[in-house]
């Protein structure tokens, strides 16, 4: 099967522009290197020594995968795909037929919990068992053969490992939560580690993908630094060789790269937020790319949407690309000689294009704030109208800042948690990649004429999370944090206390209005009461009850405002009142709790009366029609008691009454074809 390409004059012009830009991409992409560190490439970087085949012709789709984060080809040609939300690895034959499943949910040897990466040996697979913070070697029939590492920040310990690669003797693990790479022998012995948090050469900011070539080089997809870093590993040490990328959309530039693969002298990169696979030489020279953002909702045929990983078969004739948000993988074959490249599409975040909407949003009174990591912006909407009206955006292009300069305030690198406070007209933003909390004030009045004002948001102040962590650690009675504070989610009380859910530290931290530490909870007490992976947080209207979406525990944990554990809501499963991936929570003015689950694609509503929990409604299913979702994400309630849901992979927001009645949707105009009519 071949991809359809539009071969119009406009397309050809854009292609010519794109090719011209290739000549400048090395300069624009900020390639840096350490002289003399590249080894002379062997004649057989991988496979039989034949030069790399140019891949990119769509061949087939592997469908119905539950958040496929990564894949690898086995020696016999079968494709192994990690189904993160189903806690297993699935094997497919060359016709994309499911032939075997390995693993089951849990923490015992042979069981997996939110696995995220995989590498294949001759007769076994190595899996990043990320939810258990370890590596497992499993035979191809699922027999556990080795368990390596435990949770932590020390030597040989892992935190949320996101990538794994093998050479003849070693495992290289992208230890994402610790911003480093750890090296183990295949017998499980810890050998060494390299890297630390930062933006300089050899430092990392959420390293995820990792690959080895046959010449002793290790390549790391340094996702929040928007680059690939190359190291030479010899004599038991890693030496920085070069880096390339830089945030941007032009050829050679990267936007949150999460996967990397080496094949026959070529380095392939899953360029996630550019929705494409880019191919480079081992020296970082741009070669070619394939993939364009989907136009029709969830279309396939080679259109790519947030690729997380890429794997190349050993003969170099096929590549598999994982797209977790589309619940699929696509397989690509060789491109015929002379095939013109696809047009480079206008980035969706350019002015005038429709928003992608991030996963997290916050509403208070008439205003709503939505974080959009793809464009590194935060958007503010006036929700007093049937359709929310965007009144300002803020954030700046982070790519223009040299690596030796601090990121400018007012700009973001992966804006995540966002809190709208209409009383003070403050917007708090968790600036994840820059490791800081930024606070903005909106110069807005409710009675002013409706208008878009790009200068409405003023940066007020920022708190460096490293410094905040240091102050907390010095405070008497403060919890012992294994890692610096990371703002996974945030909420604020009417008393201006900030409640921060820190997934990596498995804790909720409470600060006063000056960000002085007050208390922490969720990290101590009986094991059953502790948090495992807090992903979102919401407060009851009076601030007396705290709801925490604990995605790694498949439930919502409830505490009082002092941090005393009260009860859980839900358990793992698919029936009413049960969850598979409870990611986000919201609470309405009656105190009713709403929970979104992107694997079930459902919103469930619970009535809370004291310690009594009653299911009060459930709605949603996977799809594109009204009331249907694709990667359901954040929830918020506006002043009109409308429940707003981020329908993330459908690139829209949906509005419901508190009883689940569909009211309206907003966004999704980046698609050029009509959406299905309401049934």
């Amino acid at each position: 099967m071949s991809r359809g390409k539009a071969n119009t004059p406009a397309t050809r012009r854009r292609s010519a522009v794109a090719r011209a830009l290739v000549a400048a991409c090395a300069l624009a992409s900020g390639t840096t290197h350490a002289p003399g560190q590249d080894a002379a490439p062997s004649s057989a970087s991988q496979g039989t020594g034949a030069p790399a085949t140019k891949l990119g012709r769509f061949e087939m789709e592997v469908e119905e995968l539950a958040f496929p984060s990564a894949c690898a080809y086995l020696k016999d040609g079968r494709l192994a795909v990690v189904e993160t939300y189903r806690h297993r690895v699935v094997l497919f034959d060359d016709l994309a037929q499911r032939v075997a499943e390995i693993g089951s949910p849990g923490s015992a040897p042979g069981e997996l919990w939110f696995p995220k990466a995989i590498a294949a040996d001759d007769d076994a697979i190595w899996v990043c068992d990320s939810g258990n913070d370890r590596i497992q070697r499993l035979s191809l029939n699922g027999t556990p053969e080795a368990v390596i590492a435990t949770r932590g920040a020390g030597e040989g310990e892992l935190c949320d490992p996101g990538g794994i690669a093998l050479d003849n003797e070693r495992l290289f693990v992208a230890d994402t939560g610790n911003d480093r790479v750890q090296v183990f022998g295949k017998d499980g012995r810890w050998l060494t580690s390299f890297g630390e948090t930062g933006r300089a050469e050899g430092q990392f900011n959420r390293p995820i993908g990792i690959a080895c070539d046959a010449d002793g080089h290790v390549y790391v997809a340094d996702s929040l630094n928007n680059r690939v870093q190359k190291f030479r590993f010899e004599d038991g040490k890693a030496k920085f060789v070069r880096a390339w990328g830089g945030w941007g959309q032009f050829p050679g530039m990267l936007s949150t790269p999460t996967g990397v693969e080496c094949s026959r002298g070529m380095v392939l990169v899953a360029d996630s937020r550019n929705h494409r696979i880019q191919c480079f030489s081992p020296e970082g020279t741009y070669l070619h790319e394939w993939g364009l953002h989907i136009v029709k909702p969830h279309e396939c045929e080679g259109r790519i949407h947030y690729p997380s990983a890429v794997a190349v078969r050993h003969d170099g004739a096929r590549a598999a690309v994982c797209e977790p948000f589309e619940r699929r993988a696509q397989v690509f074959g060789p491109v015929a000689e002379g095939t013109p490249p696809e047009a480079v599409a206008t980035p969706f975040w350019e002015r005038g294009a429709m928003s992608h909407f991030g996963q997290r949003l916050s509403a208070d009174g008439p205003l709503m704030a939505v974080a959009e990591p793809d464009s590194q912006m935060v958007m503010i909407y006036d929700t007093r109208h049937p359709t929310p009206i965007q009144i300002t955006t803020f954030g700046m292009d982070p790519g223009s800042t040299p690596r030796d300069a601090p990121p400018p305030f007012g700009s973001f690198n992966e804006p995540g948690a966002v809190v709208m406070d209409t009383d003070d007209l403050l917007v708090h933003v968790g600036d994840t990649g820059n490791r800081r909390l930024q606070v903005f004030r909106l110069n807005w009045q409710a009675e002013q004429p409706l208008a878009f004002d790009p200068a409405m948001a003023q940066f007020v102040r920022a708190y460096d999370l490293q410094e905040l962590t240091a102050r907390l650690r010095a405070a008497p009675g403060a919890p012992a944090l294994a890692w610096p504070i990371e703002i996974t989610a945030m909420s604020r009380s009417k008393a201006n206390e900030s409640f921060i859910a820190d997934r990596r530290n498995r804790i909720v931290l409470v600060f006063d209005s000056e960000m002085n530490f007050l208390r922490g909870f969720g990290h101590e007490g009986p094991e059953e009461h502790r948090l495992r992976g807090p992903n979102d947080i919401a407060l009851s209207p009076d601030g007396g009850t705290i709801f925490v979406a604990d995605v790694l525990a498949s439930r919502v944990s409830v505490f009082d405002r002092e941090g005393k554990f009260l009860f859980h809501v839900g358990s793992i499963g698919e029936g009413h009142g049960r969850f598979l991936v409870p990611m986000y929570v919201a609470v309405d003015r009656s105190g009713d709790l709403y929970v979104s689950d992107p694997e079930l694609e459902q919103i469930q509503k619970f009535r809370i009366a004291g310690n009594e929990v009653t299911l009060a409604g459930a709605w949603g299913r996977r799809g594109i029609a009204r009331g249907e979702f694709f990667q359901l994400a954040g929830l918020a309630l506006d002043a009109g008691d409308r429940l707003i849901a981020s329908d993330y992979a459908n690139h829209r927001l949906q509005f419901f009454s508190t009883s689940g009645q569909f009211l309206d949707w907003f966004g999704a105009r980046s698609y050029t074809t009509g959406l299905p009519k309401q049934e």
Partner: protein
Amino acid sequence: MRSARCVMKLMGCGVVAAMWAATLGACSTGSDGTCCEASQNGAASARAADPSTGGQTGTTEIRSNGGAYLVRFETVPSPIPTNELFSMRVSVFDGSGRTQASEEISLSADAAMPHHHHGMNVRPRVSRNDDGSFLVRGMQLHMPGYWEIYFDITRDGRTERAQYNLTIE
């Protein structure tokens, strides 16, 4: 050299345009009720020549967006020219008087045109003077229109911005 035929319009919140005589009244009081130390010498200091150029400048005073600081600055040349380099002498005051830059705080400066989604094409350099003030060199507002000049003051991991809005024609 382009003649300094530009007009500055004062806009936005938190901006107080003051000549040196007005700074005495415009200065905030500290938490104990005392006025900033520097304001008592404000007349003299504001009339003092900019050490980098020897020329006289006007002084502008603004409060930071979170209210923690008072920032006083003067530009050379003044008014700010269009598409030409200029410098700024910046003093930062908190409730206890002028902060001692080298010991307590750091300052960064920048500017942007939010309606155009871009900043300056240059990167200014900030250095510290012995008296605790800062010298910002290499600012350039390269086109007419609405600009925001940012002073980001950092102490102990907390940064607060003072912002000056202007339109260059």
